[in-house]
């Protein structure tokens, strides 16, 4: 049997709101995935390194401090710099719709905002990270 999907759930910058990140981490774990939660205050470089070292299929970034337009692009850059663009990068938090559109344009695969059903997030991760696994092996 194939090993389960492996997802890094990350908190970056100075944002201490970890309720959402922890709920998502548990929900993905309950859905049968392996979840690595980075803990708080991680630098974008560290998050990407963790994902590469752990051979993760996806990175989910949670930001509720308003710094999303800085921190999401920094991770996109790091994924490019470390040649890891196959890793599915998604995120969530208090992110206005225009900002979410802009982030998707630069390479964030999906943005989930407050109230998004867990089932949608789980489906997205299973589908996208599953595809990645098939491609990368």
């Amino acid at each position, binding site marked *: 049997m194939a090993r389960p999907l492996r997802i890094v759930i990350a908190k970056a910058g100075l944002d201490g*709101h970890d309720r959402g990140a922890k709920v998502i981490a548990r929900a993905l774990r309950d859905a049968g995935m392996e979840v690595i*939660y980075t803990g708080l205050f991680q630098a974008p470089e560290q998050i990407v390194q963790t994902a590469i070292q752990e051979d993760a299929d996806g990175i989910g970034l949670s930001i509720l401090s*308003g710094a999303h337009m800085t921190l999401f692009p920094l991770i996109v850059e790091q994924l490019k710099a470390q040649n890891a663009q196959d890793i599915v990068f998604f995120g969530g938090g208090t992110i206005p719709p225009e900002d979410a559109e802009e982030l998707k344009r630069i390479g964030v695969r999906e943005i989930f905002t407050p109230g998004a059903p867990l089932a949608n997030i789980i489906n997205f991760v299973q589908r996208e990270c599953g595809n990645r696994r098939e491609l990368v092996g």
Partner: protein
Amino acid sequence: MIERPASPGAQPENDFSAQEKIWENASAKGKRRKDVGSGAVDRTISDLPLKTIYGPQDVELDLARDLSWPSIYPYTRGIHPNMYRDRLWTMRQFAGFGNAKQTNERYHFLLSHGQHGLSVAFDMPTLMGYDSDAPQARGEVGKCGVAIDSLADMDTLFDGIDMGDITTSMTINGPACIALALYVAAAEKKGTPRSKLGGTVQADILKEYIAQKEWIFPPRPHMRLIVDMIRFCRDEMPRWNTISISGYHIREAGSTAAQELAFTLADGFAYVEACVGAGMDVDSFAPRLSFFFNSHIDFFEEICKFRAARRIWARHMRDRYGAKDPRSLQMRFHTQTAGCSATAQQPENNIVRVAYEALAAVLGGTQSLHTNSMDEVLALPSEKAAEIALRTQQVLAYETNVTNVVDPLGGSYFIEALTNELERQAEDYFKRIEEFGGVIEAIEAGFFQREIADASYRYQRSLETKDRILVGVNAFEKPEERQDIELLRIGVEMEREQARSVADVRGNRDQAAARTALERLKKACADPNDNVMPHLINCVNAYLTEGEIVEAMAGVYGRYTEKVAF
């Protein structure tokens, strides 16, 4: 138990117990609604069991012991004899964004529209002890609140405001003692002596480790900073509330009402024990301790939480800590409506949620209140949203007449039963915390963090299964909803400008004076018999920046890291 009126020989229709039997039969035949799960009907949002109706048999109540009168121990019904008949709660809207100048303009707006006191929201770098030009601050400057790096910023923040005339609440914890030093220095520069300053600095570091996660130093050295601050205020700032022991963030992190109540009060007892342990008389500092609670959407549960909080605090302060001054026993608290109850979907609905939550806070006897703006779940409040939030309080205060009778729900079988149940659950938690050896030990063991994460996951699952309904989110959704409310945005130019201005402050000060002040502070940090507060005031007066001061203190105390679990 409240006694039932004896009615010997009465006809069934006049006999209370017989009536109860008839009702029970009728009730058993009722068909339950199917639009929500049974959990949403039989339990509060915090999972406390609910009955269909409460009667005298449900309430264990000794009137003098448990209820008493307003302003009389154990203060269940309120801490003032006439409550809002004599004085309304303070309408205190939390505000701060961008730089000090922008926030100062918002303060002038709020004060000119009838707000009573100010409440400063700081940005993340300020809360975490980083200057605006630190690499850790990128993207965060001015976003969640106002950026305050040095005395120059604090000066601008209160420009044109008489600091002796208003009270100010500052929501800051890790660097709370530095924020207080900045406030004192800014006021004294404008000619208001520290003894005349009124307000609160949140300074509740224990709930940071438990829930909000804005810490800097490890818990044990940080407790010393708190004791220093409380001692300094006792001696030099008699009108200042030294600490605002906060359940708000515990609740926002996903706790239940009982957890919010229990963990907050346990934190309060830990501060009392730290001060008493440092040789202070309990009545010399306890009257200036204050509290801060969340008002969530489960209406009656919240009212009971506030009532139980007052009673528990009074009982423990009197019986466990030997406090004698009534002010040491009276719990004063601020309330904020629940940010976590607001929804990004159909954000105007949040105005209604806030109004109910504000009503619960007032029926629970709060001393001051912040009502959230409808758009806070999306961004910082716009001016229009902030005004509606303030008007919500004014309608409540002046139009509904709920202010005219003290504790109007007191004596309700349901309210008293639920108040008792919350007190019982809090006492259970106190025992469990004691088994760890105390609050700090329980933090280190991850106890609070785990309890809260479990509760928040349970709640999320109940939305997922539609056991509970959240209007606009898992029911009554509007497909293709587009938000057309105007959002406040903080540009990147602001960050650059603020970074330049803090660099200027560092460049233009008397460097020798700054170095000396910093050396003295480091020495004081290492000397448990000194008090850091006067040294911090010297540091900020020498225009040392917050980041520099924190760095120096971290050199002595180290920095906290959390053991990660989910």
